[in-house]
């Protein structure tokens, strides 16, 4: 009897593929791009071992459209890329949302605009969280900050994507994708049936299933879109996720995700040692944005600092969440740089000074 260990050392990119396989993902369609390439490397190695499908597509566009094909057949399918590749995929993501097909897309973010560089940045927030493609739609967006979460959240992304029939992103910066950490592999999910919308199954009237996104009658499209937006509203009400660290009495609240949250957490410790009541709200998902977790801090918080690897994108959602009832300031680095613990501490102390009315 062979015994197995569930502790393993993996890169974030690798852990996401493990998560996908443990969550019964049947198909991976990918295209090489740094710093996400290990996703395709790992998928190429492991999917065939489980007799599942790996295809290196001709392009980012090809890859995401292959995902549409597999999802339309009721399978769990995934692709992975980085910023500029995601830009190319956006058209198809709009279609996924319109078909109401689930799929998981990994975005291992790098610096931009343009080619930028392959250092970590979080400036994909707008294109991933706010739509990116055409038409009014939303995607679930998970924001892991560890290799363990790369695995766990990819698994959860498949479940929620399927539950709500909408595409889900796992958005992690290059550091989270590239670094190795020890993690505990979760148990594989039990086998699943192909989804009922599979094109080789029948609809309620016994006719072959079909999927379309074209509704020429204005009233008809309005009704279809109304249903989509009602779904997104339900997601906002029920699926907010955040991790609070020492926020119970915090006077200055940091808000950060991904690697920025890892540094911010250390900054909170340093600030606390200095006697400053600091805390961290870490969004585990940024759509839906954890508005409630931030609102809950308003009874004691005097200032909020958004810590980001961008010139300020998530901060807009932070401001909306707290309805600007306390000053919200930004601590950021970009271009591949990461704010240091000292920089975050200084920003927090500064915010607290400015925030004292």
């Amino acid at each position, binding site marked *: 009897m062979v015994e*197995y*260990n569930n502790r*393993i050392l993996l*890169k974030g990119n690798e852990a996401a593929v493990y998560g996908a396989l443990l969550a019964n993902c049947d198909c991976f369609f990918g295209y090489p791009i740094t710093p996400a390439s290990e996703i395709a490397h790992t998928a190429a190695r492991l999917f065939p071992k489980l007799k599942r499908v790996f295809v290196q597509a001709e392009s980012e566009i090809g890859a995401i*459209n292959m995902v*549409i094909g597999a999802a339309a057949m009721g399978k769990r399918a995934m692709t992975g890329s980085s910023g500029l590749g995601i830009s190319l995929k956006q058209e198809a993501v709009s279609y996924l949302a319109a078909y109401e097909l689930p799929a998981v897309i990994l975005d291992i973010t790098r610096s931009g605009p343009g080619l930028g560089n392959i250092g970590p940045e979080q400036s994909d927030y707008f294109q991933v969280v706010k739509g990116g493609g055409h038409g009014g739609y939303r995607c679930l967006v998970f924001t892991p900050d560890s290799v363990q979460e790369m695995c766990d959240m990819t698994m959860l992304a498949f479940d929620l994507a399927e539950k709500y029939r909408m595409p889900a992103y796992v958005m992690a910066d290059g550091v989270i994708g590239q670094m*190795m*950490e020890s993690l505990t592999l979760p148990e594989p999910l039990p086998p699943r049936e192909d989804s009922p919308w599979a094109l080789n199954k029948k609809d309620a009237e016994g006719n072959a299933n079909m999927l*379309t996104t074209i509704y020429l009658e204005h009233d008809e499209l309005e009704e279809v879109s109304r249903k989509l937006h009602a779904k997104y509203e339900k997601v906002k009400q029920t699926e907010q996720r955040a991790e609070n660290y020492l926020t119970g009495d915090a006077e200055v609240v940091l808000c950060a995700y991904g690697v920025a949250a890892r540094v911010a957490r250390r900054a909170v410790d340093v600030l606390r040692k200095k006697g400053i009541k600091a805390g961290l709200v870490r969004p585990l998902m940024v759509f839906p944005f954890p508005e409630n977790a931030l609102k809950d801090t308003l009874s004691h918080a005097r200032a909020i600092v958004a810590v980001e690897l961008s010139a300020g994108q998530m901060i807009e959602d932070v401001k909306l969440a707290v309805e600007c009832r306390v000053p919200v300031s930004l601590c950021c680095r970009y271009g591949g740089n990461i704010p240091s613990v000292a920089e975050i501490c200084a920003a927090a102390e500064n915010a607290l000074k400015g925030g004292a009315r």
Partner: protein
Amino acid sequence: MKEMVKFGKSPVFFDKFTRRPGPIQDNMHYCPGCGHGILHKLIAEAVAERGIQDKTIILAPVGCAVFAYYYFNCGGISVSHGRAPAVGTGVSRSTPDSCVISYQGDGDLGAIGFNEFLQAANRGENMTVFFVNNTNYGMTGGQMAPTTLPGQITTTTPYGRDVNTEGYPLKVCEMVDALEKPIYIERVALSTTANIMKARRAVGKALDNLKAHKGFSLVEVLSGCPVNLKKSAEDMNRFIDENMTKYFPLGCFRDRSAEVEEFVPEYAPVHDPEEVKSILFPRKLNIGVSADFRNESDIFRSERRIKIAGFGGQGILSLGIMLATMGKLRNFNVSWLPSYGPEQRGGSANCSVILSREKIASPIIDGECNLLIAMTSTALEKFKGELKPNSVLVYDSSTLERPDVPADIKVLGIDALNIAREIGNVKCANSVILGALSVVLVDSYLQGDDKMDFDRAFEEAIIDSFNNKPEVIKQNLYAFYEGKKAGAKCFKHGISGNIDKKANDDALNEIIKADNFRDSSTDL
């Protein structure tokens, strides 16, 4: 059944087109004289005759045929412009017993989606592409298509297609004929009854191939668009026969249908949780410590924040991985962060390793380094400023002078490169350093059996790192113990007594015996 197909509506069509919104549900939405209706009918008949209705998935393009799902009672999806062959790849790979029909027009296939089309053809995906060539974009209002004839007037070539600026019409069948994988390529026309009967045979042959899962078939169909081309139905057919066929000759370009065997798709993805685990989970090894082991001593009570720096080829990143693997095997939390990117293409290389009992906050060293391993002078200069008070610096004394650092920093010079050279493999220098590190990290904190436990974790980390290369593993294990000796000398304190015993052939052979190897699925 056959009678019905010949003289009535194919059962693959809906009796009434109720998926079509509005009051008209008996007729198709196509214009009079349009070829789509004829081709739809030929496909519906052929699908019915072959009994593949339940397996057929029709991909509708952007263009007038976007509404194909109004008519066909087959699995249907209307996809975005040009992407049908990519979507079809997803359908057929994920569900290999399906029969994928990609129905595309000339703008969709020849312009915006040419790459998706050509690549699917080149991969030999199991699908049939029906390519409707009517020399213009129909639905959007008669613009120039890749197949518009020289001199032909369209809404975007009001003075006629000028081959000097717009090039010549795209010969799709001829291009696909240059590829190896496609099995059947034919161009037909819908201009006359005789041609329609030929088209019927071509559609049938393509669907025979599809049913037998033989691979990629392409049928190009020259088709009329009298409304946009501003022609009567009669003139339209004359245009196809006299103008289009001159540039797009009819006929079969390739037919390897008979040479290719019928293929029975096998699709048995592994989902049984135990089987999945056997592939993904690391095997427990015979050496090392149990998974629930928790050392009671003080080691790593506070975080060890380690920076390893040098240049590419010195095994900097793998030294970090070995260290992290050791930590993982002892159930510590570990993180390993490489300097990824252009640097890895040559020149400097560095990585950060953190070992801790607690959840690791920031994986970035960020000026709080308590152990620096420097293998080059550049690395030393770059990172020595990050060392905290009372930290440790390890450097390769084979190549570097003793560095000038504050007195509270403990400095260990390890003759790594020279020791590795003596062993016979300069690449082992990183394992020499690992041995020295094991003294710094472990021996100064642990006593007795604990040390041996850690030795075994290091051994396993080395085996893991050089999986499947026993001779390299042996050299590195040897280097590790030599490094341990060198480290102990520097530290001037006692170390466990079994080093000399370990650093010999028999002992090393015992460590690397076959059943101590992992399944290769856990390669890093």
